[in-house]
């Protein structure tokens, strides 16, 4: 009896005092191994009479269970301590910076293009494109610029050299030549698939792209971006034009109401022609759209000139419609506050980082334009 009590006390103390898992294991083998002290005691049970066994059995089994439990507890405690110690050693200084990564940006002009396309796509416009190097016919003649007319001079055209036949190609001064490419009936050119080809009315397209004029200051650069719009159908009138532009402006600037006004203007390829102004406030240095009492011109537009329709093989007694042209960079400057157009094309990484957009800010009807 005393032996068992002593043995249990001795073992329990040694278990509690074991310093590591190896020492604990040694104790376990010594007590519970095949020839361990507790195992030996268990073997004695077989030699006892049933009555003795009834008395001694529970004692010895109890000893075994108590020792096993003490070992398991100690083992768990030692394991926990060991893990804690290991983890403590694995501590790092998380104030240190992660490996450097560059922050990518989408250029604001391209962001604005995407925003504009999103709004017009919602109104049923499809996209059309044309080449940057154009011929005189598509850029001027078909658009009702009479040869040698002063309106041509106003375009500050970049010219390429004369070819053998005396013809000069040019850099398109506007995206309007794509109107011609989209409307011109019966054309038989072998052109790459991305260039707009003849459509049968009704036509409803927008044309984004690079345009070029020989001009440079804070609000003019030799290259800039336009988005052209063209709608041709049987009964499209100036009221539709007004609705389209008003609706666009309000959605693009993401304000419910932007006050606008239409003014008569002159473009050779539209009749009547107009410019649209938006109400703005220039008093604080920045331009604030939709506030104040100043007007700012924002888009040129009008009803497609009958001569343009005729030049494209459409009967102006049957078809009519409107066209408009936005300066994309300029709209971006107004919406996002870039002060100088030239910066748009300078590729300064600080400017791109500041005025650029995240890859994930793709305009989307669910998340809004911007």
């Amino acid at each position, binding site marked *: 009896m005393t032996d068992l009590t002593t043995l249990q006390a001795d073992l329990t103390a040694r278990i509690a005092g074991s310093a590591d898992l190896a020492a604990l294991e040694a104790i376990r083998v010594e007590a519970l191994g095949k020839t361990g002290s507790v195992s030996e005691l268990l073997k004695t049970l077989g030699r006892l009479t049933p009555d003795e066994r009834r008395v001694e059995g529970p004692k010895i089994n109890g000893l075994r269970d108590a020792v096993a439990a003490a070992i398991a507890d100690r083992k768990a405690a030692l394991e926990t301590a060991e893990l804690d110690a290991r983890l403590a050693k694995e501590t790092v200084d998380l104030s240190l910076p992660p490996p450097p990564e560059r922050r*990518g940006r989408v*250029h604001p*002009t391209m962001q604005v293009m995407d925003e504009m396309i999103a709004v017009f796509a919602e109104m049923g416009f499809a996209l059309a494109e044309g080449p940057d190097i154009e011929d005189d016919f598509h850029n001027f003649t078909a658009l009702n610029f009479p040869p040698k007319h002063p309106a041509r001079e106003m375009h500050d055209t970049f010219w390429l050299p004369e070819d053998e036949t005396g013809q000069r190609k040019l850099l398109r001064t506007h995206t309007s030549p794509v109107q011609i490419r989209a409307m011109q009936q019966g054309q038989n050119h072998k052109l*790459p698939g991305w260039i707009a080809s003849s459509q049968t009315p009704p036509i409803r397209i927008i044309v984004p792209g690079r345009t070029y004029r020989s001009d440079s200051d804070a609000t003019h650069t*030799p290259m800039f971006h336009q988005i052209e719009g063209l709608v041709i159908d049987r009964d499209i009138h100036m009221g539709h034009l007004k609705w389209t532009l008003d609706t666009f402006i309000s959605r693009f600037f993401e304000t419910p109401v932007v006050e606008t006004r239409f003014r008569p203007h002159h473009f*050779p390829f539209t009749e009547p022609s107009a410019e649209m102004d938006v109400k703005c406030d220039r008093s604080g240095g920045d331009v604030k759209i939709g506030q104040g009492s100043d007007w700012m011109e924002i888009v040129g537009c009008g*009803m497609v000139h009958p001569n343009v329709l005729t030049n494209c093989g459409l009967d102006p007694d049957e078809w009519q419609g409107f066209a408009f042209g936005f300066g994309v960079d300029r709209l971006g400057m107004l919406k996002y506050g870039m002060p100088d157009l030239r910066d748009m094309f300078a590729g300064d990484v600080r400017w791109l980082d500041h005025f*650029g957009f995240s890859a994930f800010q793709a305009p989307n009807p669910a998340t809004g334009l911007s």
Partner: protein
Amino acid sequence: MKFTLSWLKEHLETTATVDQVVTAMTMAGLEVEHVEDPGAKLAAFSVARIVEAVQHPNADKLRVCQVDTKDGRLEIVCGAPNARAGLTTIYAPIGAYVPGSGVTLEARPVRGVVSNGMLCSAKELEVAEESDGIMELSGDLAVGALAADVLGLEAVIDFEVTPNRPDWLGVRGIARDLAAAGLGTLKPDVTAAVAGAFPCPIEIAVDGDACPVFAGRLIKGVKNGPSPAWLQQRLISVGLRPINALVDVTNLISIDRARPLHVYDAAKLEGAIIEARLGRDGEQVAALDGKTYVTTPEICVIADGSGAIGIGGVMGGESTGCSEATTDVFVESAWFDPIRTAQTGRTTGINSDAQYRFARTVDPASVTPGLELATSIILELCGGVASDVLIAGHAPAPPKAIAFDRAFVKKLSGLDVGAVRIDDILTRLGFEVDGHNVTPPSWRRDVEGRADLVEEIARIEGFDALPSTPLPPIDRPPGGALTVRQVRMRNARRALAARGYAETVSWSFMRREWAELFGGGAAKLVLSNPIASDLDTMRPSTLGNLIDAAARNARKGFADAALFEVGPNFRGDEPGDQWTAVTGLIAPHAPKHWTKASGDPLFALKADLLALLDELGAPGLQVVQGQNASWWHPGRSARLQLGPKVVIAEFGELHPRVLKALDADGPMLAFEINLDAIPEPKRRGVKTKAALDLSTLMPLRRDFAFLVGAETPAGDLIRPIMGADKALIAAARVFDVYQGQGVPEGMKSVAVEVVVQPREKTLTDPEIEGLSARIVAAADKAVGAKLRG
């Protein structure tokens, strides 16, 4: 085009203010650029009279004046030599800002005498560019009268005349539109013909090619001299310099009626014929601007017996100009062809008021009325006797009648305007309305069809009245508004931005020498009139612009850059020569970092490129090394090809020679993708994806170490290994390359991990060994690879 309210009121009966005029103009299509009010800055200035002027005690050139002013009698020090008792002049009080000298006046002593204000010169008031002494005004002016009123300064309205409306280059044309817009009533034109007192002794001849119609008359016995004040002031108010009465009358009518005229000193004409004809090669004209111009057979000249004496419709000649000594004047009123005049303007570089008007088409019906108006004013100002009027040639035919269904106004504009109102607007604008037919006035050659008439109705009725009508529904393209290519451009942008590249938009043109470095620079892609010599050639590649942008950033202290651009490159000048490039560039100067992780950044770029191509839906591409264009590093660049011919992209390190030529510090790594070369996916009606076969069996991984020739691209092992069993081998990847001890000279060891995916049942050992043998055999057959012992 500039004019003043008082000038407008010569033609328009109105009580409108300048602001009302400006608003009405803007809404009628006359876009006002700005209104300058020179009187506004002279609000503090007023008339004063010098009572006494004595020598300054301490300065020879100064006088001390007692001056009657609106502020009472003041002592004012004045340095002008004409400061004298009795002189009426302009006074500026203390505190006034003097615009011509940029000084705000303070009461402080001038050489010991306090000046209580200032007496002003015309230059100080900015009413003249030069002046001697203080202003000398009429003695009957009241002291205290406002300087702006006395000097006749009033607001000048400056607006942009669109090329279709040359009639707006005359004040009367503006008045007519404003009257139609309801701002007042157009006054009648009271010009009466002056009967000739004698036959014109100077004959007129025209070559119709050069000048369709030319009218003229002689006025004898004029007394030329400075114009009267009203005429001088009128010209000055719109920025013209008065010269003498005869010349001033022509300038007046040019602005007033958009009708340029010319006056010749008849005494200086040689011979009795004045002729308008085409120039002769080598012929010279000494023009009124003091320069000599060489004429050509494209230019219309005016000639007398001595030869060319003027450039028709552009500028008169010095030899026959009118001076104060002129007594007999020949007055010309002609109609010069717009295109010829515009060309002459460009050839000679002359941009005179006359050239500007003729180039934009002067009213051909104004030839005679203009001459009569000039005659009557000259007779009034200079006296003299006028001859008969001579006319040679024929004015172009007047505009044709347009058949006009009034219902078309609503169809095209959406505006509801009644027929009566339509006809009223047209009539006010000078159109003749005769039932169905509407005939534009002679000055409206821009009006050719019914759409032009709708514009007239709509702009006078007011664009404010336009309805806002939603667009009708339209069938939408089932695939969305964008083409596959447009979607790819958009995805390329966002994919590269997500991988850390910043998007640039750079010029489509570049320096020719740079274009040549990238395989471009052909003469037909060099602009004839570039904005700058370094922006003269259409770019063959976007790489040059990105290198330049990175170099410019580096020079500002920001050397680490990852840039990209999606835009056009040009192989030639045909539409099919333009291709869409996605171009990326890394200038690897990442900041120092405590982990000191390193690796060849070229492979980071390759990872970006492959991820991008995957995003764009490109199929698997071959890496072909050693065939890149000359601007790439020969050993550190490659192409990605689809089959043996189609190059989808080039990538690698840029050649140091190219970077040096662009003044850029290397290394720089880049890629350029030809987006248009990536095949478009087959269009499928249904969007369901192919069935997915997911094996329930564990894949096995086996590593192979091959010995191959040192020059063999390690990547060349992958295709044969994958082909050894297309059903079982799911992936193969090079994970180590080793040269050195244990590897024979001229060889390298390439370690490849092969992933085997059992399909239906677990593979037995013999099956695995069989597969391994096939892999080794395939690698041997393809590139002579031997399993390393």
